[in-house]
């Protein structure tokens, strides 16, 4: 096989978005992915394209998440146009509901801090009282005291997004190609995956939790860990909810997703009835009519988290050509990954401001 420009290791939302972005810049690439059953956050996530809570105390991430939300409409339109696959993206803004005065005050304080942090860049999140929230979402329950609303938030079908990205990648997407070895060689890398070996000048590690093992193949340790989120989905219901929020969103099909827990349980992606019950309870408090809806599916999926929960983008020590892209919000960041991050890779250099995303930041914290 002739040499490729870049090999993307991982065909979830992060790898596929980056691969798509590289391909639309006419680079010769391959995206390597595992088979039918894998730890795949891309298939188990909630589908929010989210801004409002991202990057507290860490402006580079707040900026990056906001930038991605800004480019998402164009990215979505282009992807649908190129592939003919609809992805059900909608950007009407999103909520975070507060179920007590205390929650409301805490949220208001957090929002105020974010306003100060983001300053003139415009954070645009507003607190709304119960009456205002109810005007926009008449189905809220009596316990809802208010919430925050962010006009930049949106949601998408993560599965349709993944399908469209794979459709766009075409033959560059290689399923059942789990990477088993990475070798360095003159001017680049050789990657052994499935029965094949791929060679390229550069590689991108975008395999979610799989990045732990991939980085080790090049002698590096990444500070990431799994965190489980369980999600419930109801049968398709008549439309009743125009806005998504953390924990409840009605999809384009009409089914309602409820979630998601945050559990430190290692690599166990199972479900637990007590956790599902808590999720159900919270959902019914927010929207009482959900009590009568039937749950048709539930699952657990593993988030990919750095200690501060922000992304890690960097080259691996001693391997300038091996770039790591690891983040929790692969849906939210898909726009920026495809349109911007792929551009940086094509040009061969991450911008200086991306130094903030290096995992070095954890060493600094440790010594400070």
């Amino acid at each position, binding site marked *: 096989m002739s040499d490729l420009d870049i090999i993307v290791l991982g065909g979830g939302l992060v790898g596929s978005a980056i691969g798509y972005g590289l391909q639309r810049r006419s680079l010769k690439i391959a995206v390597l992915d595992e088979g039918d059953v894998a730890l795949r956050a891309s298939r188990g996530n909630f589908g929010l394209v989210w801004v409002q809570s991202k990057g507290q105390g860490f402006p580079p991430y707040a900026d990056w998440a906001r930038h991605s939300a800004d480019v998402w409409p164009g990215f979505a339109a282009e992807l649908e146009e190129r592939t003919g696959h609809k992805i059900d993206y909608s950007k009407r803004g999103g909520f975070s509901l507060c179920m007590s005065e205390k929650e409301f005050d805490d949220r208001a304080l957090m929002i105020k801090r974010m306003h100060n942090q983001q300053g003139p860049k415009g954070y645009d999140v507003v607190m709304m009282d119960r009456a205002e929230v109810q005007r926009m979402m008449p189905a809220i329950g009596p316990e809802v005291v208010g919430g925050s609303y962010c006009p930049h938030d949106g949601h998408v079908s993560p599965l349709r997004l993944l399908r469209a990205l794979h459709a766009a990648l075409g033959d560059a997407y290689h399923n059942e190609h789990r990477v088993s070895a990475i070798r360095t060689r003159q001017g680049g890398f050789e990657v052994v995956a499935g029965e094949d070996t791929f060679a390229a000048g550069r590689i991108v590690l975008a395999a979610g939790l799989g990045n732990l093992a991939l980085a080790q193949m090049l002698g590096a340790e990444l500070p990431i860990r799994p965190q489980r989120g369980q999600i419930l989905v109801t049968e398709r219901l008549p439309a009743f909810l125009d806005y998504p929020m953390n924990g409840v969103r009605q999809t384009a099909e009409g089914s309602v997703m409820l979630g998601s827990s945050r559990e430190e349980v290692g690599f166990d992606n199972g479900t637990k009835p007590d956790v599902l019950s808590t999720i159900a309870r919270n959902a019914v408090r927010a929207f009482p009519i959900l009590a009568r809806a039937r749950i048709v*599916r539930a699952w657990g999926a593993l988030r990919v988290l750095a200690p501060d929960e922000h992304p890690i983008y960097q080259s691996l020590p001693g391997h300038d050509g091996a770039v790591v892209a690891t983040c929790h919000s692969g849906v939210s960041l898909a726009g920026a990954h495809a349109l911007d991050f792929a551009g940086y890779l094509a040009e061969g250099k991450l911008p200086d401001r991306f130094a903030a995303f290096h995992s070095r930041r954890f060493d600094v914290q440790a010594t400070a």
Partner: protein
Amino acid sequence: MTETVDLAVIGAGPAGMAAATLAAEHGLDVVVYDDNAEPGGQIYRAVETVARDRAKDFAFLGESYRAGAELTRAFRASRARYEPGTTVWLVQKDRTIGISRDGKARMVAAKRILIATGALERPVPIPGWTLPGVMSVGAAQSVLKSAALAPKQPVVLAGKGPLLFLVAAQYVAAGVKIAAILETGARKWDALPHLWQAWSKTNYIGKGLELIRAIERAGVTVVRNAVSDLKAIGRERVEAVTFSADGSPGRIETALLLLHEGVISNVQLTMAIPVKHAWNATQRCWQPVLDARGNTDVDGIAVAGDSGGIAGAEAAAHMGRIAALDALRAFGRIDGPTFAAMIVVEEVAQKRLLAARPFLDALYPPPDTAAAIADDTIVCRCEEVTAGDIRKAVDLGCTGPNQTKSFTRAGMGPCQGRMCGLTVAEIIAAKLNRPMEEIGYYRIRPPIKPLTVGELAALE
């Protein structure tokens, strides 16, 4: 406090009832959960009601059905607690069970669990099978038993397998008009070597031939030359069925088309736990891997009856008792010699019944026709996903049913993949030219039956 029990039996068919009756007789605290209103499972559905209110219906329902009344009576008389109308939606490896009854969910901790959830009919995706007026043969039999409902106009039965002929014979005996029986696939003469074995050890074959003779005597048209290309035709409901037989087309007007291609193990619960499963290439379905006493690879969880492998009702009862004996032994309720004496009786009977199985499996080989399903035929009834949609997803790189599920929504509806799982995997296997073992199955997760959000929220 979570309720606890020695042995929880899931399913009140022959396997579950036989197991529970025996275990309770020897002093175990046994509870039986079943989602139906009456005991009996699929085969002995409503047998109590028929015995009590409509005993003359036994005349057409047949002797082997009546036999269920005795099993059911013994079960009712036993000290096993029976919870009808109860759905099991969760079984965990630690043997906690999630149940739902009358709109209330609760958890039970069992020391041992016996899963006896029976069989499902193999899905038969043909064009038009979602039209009102197309049903499964098993469905028609279910209302014949439980409600004495029979087709108003002449009915068409299409497919293959013992159940199809049994129902046809029951219709004939009840005076119901059959427009035609369309037998798909050729009866396989490879079955002959198994015939002697089956003949000598069971009366299955004799019974089968008797049924077929009775149907023929009644003058029913049986089209048996490898019927293919079945289509249900109609706009709002079925109006006709078309097919080809020996290469020439046929068409029969009918308001009711009944389909059947044999039965497969109901593995929804065992897959959700999950216990280890293997592909059974002869019966063409997934089955839990069991030892001789029905134990799975998960400690304290066993399977009996058709949910562990298709063997029929009588064998299911023996398998249930074998599993019960194993449980009694484990609880120290019977001593070694008693155990040995009792189990040998069950095992001998079990072996005799299983002798017929190779013959039936070979006579009615399950269809492997996935490649022939037309692109515009619906395979996932819930989400209305077609065979072509699945094939397109494979073109996008999907190599397994979990990937096609996320790309097409096939398997995401309320039936949770029960009606499409096998077909979807077979379509993928055919297109990639790979064995089913490699293609795998949906990852099944609890709740395996839809609960309401409110019910789950109220769970303690």
